[in-house]
């Protein structure tokens, strides 16, 4: 298992956003987390990457307990995280946004940083926008840029929080293709509300509801699960 959580719990002033979440993610898998709005999905991955301090419970990454580590140390160990609400460096050029991500792993090796940056720009087909300010990009391109920052980190665990939110249909298709192409390279933990994306890219699905794990299973199993349909698929959130 590349990632394991035990009893992970988050309480906000009495309201429990996550309650005793036990979670196991094998290396190499593409896992989707689904669940209605407010189910606690963002809180859960926030606790995994260290952005949100857990009230209690443990997080293990690559066999080591990282519960006590601050976010930047967890990222250093090979996690990458993209925000649900687009989060780039608006006043820096697109190229520099990606270079900043690449530099954490590649350090002062300028040539390697440049090569990695160019590779990501090409892979996401945004080379022609490399010199634009990130803040001047369209919303869709900012989302793509943010994914590119994650790619440049070469993570072993890539966490994406609703990456296709607000993307146009064609952009969603590109995104699906990108995730599939990443399948062999890294472990992916994807929060996704677009069921077409989930069914297409996920190998395995975890359903959260009211801060708890409601079900785990393959896309077929989840589709057939009555409780899930009750809580989620039937409720119109999909």
């Amino acid at each position, binding site marked *: 298992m590349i990632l394991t959580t035990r009893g992970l719990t988050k309480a906000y002033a009495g309201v429990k956003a996550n309650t005793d979440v036990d979670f196991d993610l094998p290396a190499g898998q593409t896992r989707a987390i689904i669940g209605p709005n407010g189910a606690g999905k963002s809180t859960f991955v926030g606790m995994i990457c260290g952005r949100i301090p857990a009230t209690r419970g443990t997080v293990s990454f690559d066999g080591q307990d990282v519960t006590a580590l601050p976010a930047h140390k967890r990222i250093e160990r090979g996690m990458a995280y993209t925000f649900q609400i687009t989060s*780039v*460096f608006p006043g820096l050029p697109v190229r520099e946004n990606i270079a*900043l991500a690449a530099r954490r792993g590649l350090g002062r090796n300028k040539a390697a940083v440049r090569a990695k940056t160019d590779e990501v720009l090409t892979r996401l087909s945004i080379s022609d926008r490399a010199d634009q300010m990130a803040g001047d990009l369209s919303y869709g391109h900012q989302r793509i840029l943010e994914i590119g920052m994650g790619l440049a980190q070469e993570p072993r665990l890539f966490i994406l929080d609703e990456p296709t939110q607000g993307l146009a249909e064609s952009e969603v298709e590109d995104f699906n293709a990108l995730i599939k192409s990443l399948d062999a390279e890294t472990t992916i933990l994807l929060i996704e509300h677009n069921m077409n994306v989930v069914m297409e890219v996920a190998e395995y699905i975890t359903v959260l509801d009211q801060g708890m794990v409601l079900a785990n299973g393959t896309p077929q199993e989840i589709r057939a699960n009555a409780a899930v349909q009750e809580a989620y698929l039937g409720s119109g959130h999909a």
Partner: protein
Amino acid sequence: MNETSKSHSLHLGLIAVLALSYFVLPAYHSGNLASVMVIAIYAMGYNLLFGYTGLLSLGHALFFSAGLYGLGLVMHLANWTPLPAFAAGLIAALVVSAVIGFLILRTTGVAFMIVTLMFAQAGYLTILYFGKYTRGDEGFALKQASRQIAGYDLTDPGVRYFCALLLFSVTLLGLAYIIRAPFGRTLIAIRENEERARMLGYNVTAIKLKAVILSGVVSGASGATYALLFGYAGATFATVQYSIFPLLWVLVGGAGTTVGPFIGALFMFYLIDYASGKTEAYLLVVGVTLVLVTLFLPHGIVGTIRTRFLRWLP
């Protein structure tokens, strides 16, 4: 020309113009320009933290005074020669900014501003408390005979001018280099989006501490240079006013630009010089000008030129 060589040309051009100015300008103005270059060092130090890292300090007079007194006291009380005394000024600023930085970075936003203000005030009171050595508000003059380096008399206007220019140039080119280097890019990233920088794996607090220290040392270098070249140290330099000045210079000149601090300091120096010659209410003139600048040039003089015309400006 690519952007790097354009910005090199800009900086070297500015330095060349300043060097030539000494021979062209009347003595009164070249004297002024020497002061402006020294305070521009202070403004550049401030700009590193405010303009590039996005941290608004209201207490930089503390770092300026650490350099001022670090050099001044060892020359005044212990008869140190200028070069070791200058090193003492830098070390004083380094120690003060490291300790203060460690404490203030526990806060953010408005709390950060208030805490920096309070520490600077505590520094001012400390200077007054040790009035026996510092001579408080009245201050002390450095003996002319002690202000010599390798036979050069720093009280000579020409030597003073080129000494100021040398330190100004080193600071300008050094900071321009840092801003282009990965470290500088990281500072800008923190300014632009601290949370994102953290989630890319950067230890934001440690990087900010480095920025505070670097900013503090450059401000201290300005203070030490000031004491050395103008031969005076006094507690006035530790007052709130001297914490506000660099903020104004940088806002007027252009926060987050390499030459903005100098332009802002130059502009404000002459504005005050001109207005105080015309009217008792010169601070009103200054205030109105500031309001106009912030209304019509929200990015400052150089910042506006960058947004409107020259996107490559560093």
